[in-house]
Every structure is written in structure tokens, then in C-alpha cells.
């Protein structure tokens, strides 16, 4: 087929939208459960097919296709348009989104098989809405549509994290996610408005032309870039707005795979990639982005070492990898960050779905209670290990090249300290991921540290975990094979990066990863190093890690001391000053009325007297006039 890419992406965009509208309006269809699921999967498959076709049809010379409709008029021309923009970034992103969405939806059929049909239908309705919103964000040709889809994506995240809304912790987590990203979204909105005030347009193509004609460091552009970055920092869980992502694991695991690994959190990275031409005009903001990114990567890696919940490990890992992408963008090489976005999306989704299979089998998230699952769940073990190797950056697997490119980019951008931070983070990444692998799939849990809440490991209790049903394992294998295919493909055929890397970079990157794996093996498999002593050797860092670096507490403190105090003051003013004024007015009126009513005695003579007084007054007044 040689259809135009913009028409194809439009089909990809509208298919899940149609499914959403159908499921939202036709309630009996939604409540039927499995039928709704199949319709939703069909929509996602349509989107995937259209996306792949669009990618194929994206030409060599003309690689930007736009199709927009005028939307908000203004007296000269159009204020805003709505439509699709198909270029290499958006089309590749589209393929990732639709692929992961389809696989996750298929997987959910198995994972959520014991949900009541009405809830299942609701879940798939939200999934379709999310797919539509994310694709709308990716395909947005201007800031306005991007922002609208941005907010919609946030809404879907809230709906899906809080899918089991009767569980209090899930509801709280959903609200926390919404509020934290909202804090960033305010910045994004301000940035968009300021930018419009400076340039008069929302459109990306026009802004790119405008940016090309500007010098770096023009007045106000740093503020705008910072505001836009705030929005990205919220969605992409940069420090200090990362606090929502670990808690968001309250949602079903497929949701975590889709939204909090591969797609929604990458919206921030995508935004910065899209608007890189703006950020190039504000080099100080770029430096900030890189530093915060590297710091987030390191901090999250440290925190991941202290988690026992398998999903929380993966959550912190996602935060860490997002930091990597931001660092690359901050160093000035957005393509490196974008490449890692694509590869990370694949293998992180794989890891989450694999973790979901484990959880589904043993009914617990706690890795200290697992062990020897490789024997009982061989397929899951294999795919999980493939994902872990990709994340650790081992050659022949997907993450290797993209991670190395990020390290090279940061170095080439002249940011040495961030580079060191990223390298340490790479070491820790390999370490904590293989800790999970060894504790979950190998060894015996009863040979490890026993905490006060230790219970019998699951496999020893007579419970027999087994591999997940086909509807869950097939997506796993697809992702695993894709991971390996990308890894192998990149070994032999990849685009040259835009910078020069030193020769020692590749061996250093590989070595750091292997060192992490080795340390994990020694500590958790062969038990030659006591994990407890290793942890206590870290000293205060260990306490800090277990407390999440007290960031949540800091937010709570600010909330209590500033926000609550302020709102209570305002409430007091409202009750006593504002209401007080009104109440005083009404009290005076009532009092005045009470006094005045004594004039009405009911006696005729008093009224006659009143008339007489009036006549006297009239006579005096008229006498004066004369």
C-alpha cells in the first residue's frame, strides 16, 4: 500500500477513539466484558497495522507529512489547528505505543481474567481512551493539541492506576499521580502561553522556523524552556516530581507496563525531543535538564536497591532510565535519548509483563518470599532474563547500544560529573536487576536474610506456581524476541551518532554492566558476600534509601506547613470576615426592621398623628420654598 503516512496515522489515531466512544456509549456492550476486550484489541491491532504501514511509507526525502484542520478562528487566520503530524519521531513513537498497547491488552485478558465483566469492560474502555490520547499527543502538530492530549493521558493514568478504586491505597496513589503531574502541567501551560505571546503561534513547524531565525539566549526563552521542562519533569518523573511513579504500581501490572514504562512517562522525553529547537536557544536550561536527569538516574538506582517489591524495583528503574534519556537531551543530543526511549519501551514493558506473570502465579510482589521459580516457570524466567540483560546494557541485547550512546552523548556534551553519575547508575542498574533475578528465579529464599515479617517462601508451601497461560506468554515472547532482534540488528546496522565517542567508552560501559552482574551474583546467588553487611557498609545512604531520601516527607511537610496553613487562613477569612460582613448587614437589617415596625402600632390615632407630622413638614418646606 502506498497510502500517505498522514492518512495512515489518522486511521491509527481514530481506531481506538472509535472503540472508546462505542464502549462509553453502549453500556451493555461494555458490561459484557470479554466482548468489549476483543473490540478494544481489534482497535489496537488496527492502529498497530496502520502505524507500521505509515513507517514503511515514510519516504527518504520527504519525511514530514502534515494534515491539519482549522479549529479556533481568530480575526486574522486561525488561532489553533487540530490534526496529525507524521515524521520519523512521531511515526516511530506511534509504532511503539500501538505495539505495546496491543500486547498489553492481549495480556490483560489473562491477567484480569477473574475480574467481573463490567469491570473488565471499564478497563478496556480506559485502555482505548489511553491509546487514543497517547497517539494524539504523539501526533500533535501544535502545542494546544499536545496539551489537551497531555491532560487526557494524565486522566487515563488516574483512571487506570485507580482501577481497583475500592482499595484505599490505589485510590490514593491515583490521586497522588494526578496531583504530582498536575504540578508539572501548570508549568507546561504557562510555558505554552508565554511562548504564544512571544511568537503568536502554537504550531511546531512554524515555531521551528521562528527558532531558526533567533539567536540563543534571547530574553524570556529560558523561562519558557524551563516551564515546558516542568511539564516534562512531572510526567517523566524527574526529581523531585518522581514520587508518584513508585506508588502508581498500585494499578494492575499491565497498566504499569503500558503507561509507566513504555508510553505515558515517555511523553516528557518526547516533548523535549519535539521541541529541541526551542531548548537549543536556552543552553542553561539544557544544562539543568542534563544535571537533573543524571541525578535522578543515580538517585532512583540507589533507591531501587532497597526495594523488596518487584514492581517497585521496576518502577524506580523506570525513573532511573528516564533520567538517562533526559540527560542525553540535556547534553544536546536528543536522538540518543529518543533511541533509548524506543528500546527501553520494549524491554521495560517486557520486564513488567514478566513480573506480572510471576505475581499472577505466586500472588505476592515480595521478592524475598520468592525463589527457585526458574524451575516452575521456565518461559517466564527466560524472557525476564532477556529483559534484564537488555536493561543492564549487555551487548547483543536491545539496551546496549542506546545506553552506550547516551553515555557518549553526555560525555560529548562536556558534562563530566553527570557522566560519572550515569556510569555509577549503570553499575547499580545491573546490580539491582540481577538481585531481583537471583532472588526470584534462582537460589533459595530461606538462605537469605530473614526479616521480622518473614514467611515461608511460596514454593515451599505446597503452592505450585506455573507459567502463565498462552494469552499472557505470547506477548512476553513477542517482546523478548523483539528485544533480541533490535539488539542484534543494532550490532550490525545502526545510524552513526552525531558525536565522537572515545575508544574506551564501549568497553567501559560493558565492563560496568558486567561488574554489577558479578556483584549481584556474588551477593545473592553464591552468598559469598553478606547482603546485610554490604548494605550496612553504605551507612547513612542505606537509611536514606529506605526512606526514599525523605522526599515524600518533604512534600508532606510543605503541604502541612504552607498549603494547609494558607488554606485554613483563607477559610477563616471566608467564615469570619466575608461571611461576617454579610451577616452583620443582615443582622442590622433585621434589627432596623424590628425597630421600624414599632411605628406600626395598629392604632388609627397614631397614624393620624403621623399624617399631621407629615403635613407640618410639608408646610414648613413649602413655606421655605416660597
Amino acid at each position, binding site marked *: 500500500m502506498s497510502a500517505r503516512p498522514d492518512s495512515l496515522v489518522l486511521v491509527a489515531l481514530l481506531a481506538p477513539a472509535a472503540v472508546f466512544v462505542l464502549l462509553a456509549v453502549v453500556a451493555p456492550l461494555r458490561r459484557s466484558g470479554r466482548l468489549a476486550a476483543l473490540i478494544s484489541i481489534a482497535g489496537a491491532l488496527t492502529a498497530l497495522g496502520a502505524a507500521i504501514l505509515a513507517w514503511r511509507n515514510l519516504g527518504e526525502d520527504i519525511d514530514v507529512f502534515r494534515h491539519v484542520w482549522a479549529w479556533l478562528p481568530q480575526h486574522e487566520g486561525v488561532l489553533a489547528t487540530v490534526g496529525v503530524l507524521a515524521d520519523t519521531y512521531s511515526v516511530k513513537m506511534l509504532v511503539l505505543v500501538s505495539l505495546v498497547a496491543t500486547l498489553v491488552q492481549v495480556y490483560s485478558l489473562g491477567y484480569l481474567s477473574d475480574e467481573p465483566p463490567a469491570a473488565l469492560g471499564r478497563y478496556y474502555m480506559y485502555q482505548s481512551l489511553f491509546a487514543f490520547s497517547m497517539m494524539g499527543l504523539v501526533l500533535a502538530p501544535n502545542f494546544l493539541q499536545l496539551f489537551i492530549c497531555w491532560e487526557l493521558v494524565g486522566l487515563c493514568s488516574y483512571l487506570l492506576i485507580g482501577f481497583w478504586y475500592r482499595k484505599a491505597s490505589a485510590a490514593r496513589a491515583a490521586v497522588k499521580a494526578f496531583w504530582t503531574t498536575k504540578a508539572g502541567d501548570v508549568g507546561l501551560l504557562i510555558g505554552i502561553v508565554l511562548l504564544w505571546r512571544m511568537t503568536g503561534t502554537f504550531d511546531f513547524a512554524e515555531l521551528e522556523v521562528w527558532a531558526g531565525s533567533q539567536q540563543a539566549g534571547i530574553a524570556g526563552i529560558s523561562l519558557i524552556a524551563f516551564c515546558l521542562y516542568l511539564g516534562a519533569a512531572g510526567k517523566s518523573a524527574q526529581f523531585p516530581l518522581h514520587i508518584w511513579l513508585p506508588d502508581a504500581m498500585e494499578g494492575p501490572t499491565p497498566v504499569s507496563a503500558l503507561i509507566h514504562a513504555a508510553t505515558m512517562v515517555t511523553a516528557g522525553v518526547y516533548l523535549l525531543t519535539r521541541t529541541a529547537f526551542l531548548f537549543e536557544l536556552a543552553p542553561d536550561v539544557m544544562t539543568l535538564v542534563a544535571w537533573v536527569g543524571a541525578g535522578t538516574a543515580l538517585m532512583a538506582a540507589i533507591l531501587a536497591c532497597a526495594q523488596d517489591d518487584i514492581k517497585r524495583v521496576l518502577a524506580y528503574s523506570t525513573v532511573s532510565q528516564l533520567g538517562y534519556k533526559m540527560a542525553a537531551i540535556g547534553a544536546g543530543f536528543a536522538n540518543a535519548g529518543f533511541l533509548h526511549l524506543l528500546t527501553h519501551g520494549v524491554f521495560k514493558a517486557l520486564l513488567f509483563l514478566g513480573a506480572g506473570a510471576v505475581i499472577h502465579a505466586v500472588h505476592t510482589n515480595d521478592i524475598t518470599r520468592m525463589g527457585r521459580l526458574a524451575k516452575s516457570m521456565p518461559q517466564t524466567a527466560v524472557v525476564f532474563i532477556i529483559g534484564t540483560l537488555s536493561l543492564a546494557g549487555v551487548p547483543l541485547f536491545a539496551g546496549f547500544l542506546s545506553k552506550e550512546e547516551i553515555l557518549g552523548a553526555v560525555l560529548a556534551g562536556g558534562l563530566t560529573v553527570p557522566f560519572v553519575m550515569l556510569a555509577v547508575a549503570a553499575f547499580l542498574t545491573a546490580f539491582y536487576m540481577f538481585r531481583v533475578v537471583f532472588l526470584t528465579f534462582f537460589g533459595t529464599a530461606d538462605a537469605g536474610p530473614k526479616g521480622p515479617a518473614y514467611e515461608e517462601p511460596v514454593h515451599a508451601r505446597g503452592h505450585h506456581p506455573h507459567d502463565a497461560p498462552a494469552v499472557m506468554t505470547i506477548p512476553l515472547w513477542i517482546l523478548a524476541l523483539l528485544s533480541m532482534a533490535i539488539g542484534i540488528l543494532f550490532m550490525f546496522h545502526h545510524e552513526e551518532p552525531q558525536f565522537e565517542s572515545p575508544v574506551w567508552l564501549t568497553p567501559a560501559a560493558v565492563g560496568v554492566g558486567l561488574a554489577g552482574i558479578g556483584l549481584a551474583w556474588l551477593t545473592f546467588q553464591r552468598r559469598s558476600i553478606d547482603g546485610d553487611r554490604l548494605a550496612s557498609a553504605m551507612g547513612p545512604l542505606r537509611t536514606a534509601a529506605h526512606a526514599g531520601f525523605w522526599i515524600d516527607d518533604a512534600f508532606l511537610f510543605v503541604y502541612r506547613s504552607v498549603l494547609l496553613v494558607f488554606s485554613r487562613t483563607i477559610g477563616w477569612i471566608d467564615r469570619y470576615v466575608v461571611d461576617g460582613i454579610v451577616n452583620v448587614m443582615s443582622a442590622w437589617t433585621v434589627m432596623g426592621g424590628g425597630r421600624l415596625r414599632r411605628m*406600626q402600632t395598629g*392604632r*388609627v390615632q397614631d397614624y393620624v398623628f403621623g399624617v399631621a407630622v407629615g403635613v407640618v413638614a410639608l408646610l414648613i418646606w413649602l413655606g421655605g420654598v416660597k
Partner: protein
Amino acid sequence: MGLHAYLFLAAVVFSIGLFGVITRRNTIGILLGVELMLNAVNINLVAFSRFHGQTAGMILTVFAIAITVAEVALGLALVILLFRTRRTAIADQIDWLKG
């Protein structure tokens, strides 16, 4: 006697009647005060009519007297009705329209 004399006379009678209306406690007493005031007005009318050489004032006085008679009759009927239903003669006690 000039016009002013008659007018002064009428004014005096009028204010005496006003005093009666304001101070008397019995309703019939109030009606008597009203009678005095109306009389004073009639004197005024006739005096003006005479001093301008026209009959218009006197004709108005005829009408005024007739209407006053009707008014007195109705007023007293109301007073009787009031006494029958409420058993009181004192104007102070008729205050059921108190606000």
C-alpha cells in the same frame, strides 16, 4: 370683616378639631373631631366663594356637607360593628393590625 378674619376662624376650629382627633380615646370622640375639621373647611370654602363673588365654593360646600353626612353614617355603622365584635370602645385597644 375681611376675608382673613374668616380664614383665621376656620384655622382655629381646624386645629381644635385636629387636637381632638389626635388625643381623644373614644372612637366616636375622634369622629367628632373630624366633624369639626370638616366644618372649618366649609367655612373656608364659603368665605372664599363670597369674597370672589362666585357660587362655585358654595356649591362645593353643598356637596361636602352631603358627603360628610354619608361618611358619618358609615363611620358610625363601622363603630357599632366594631363594638359588637370586639367589645371595646377605646381606640387604643383597636390595634390588631399591629406590625
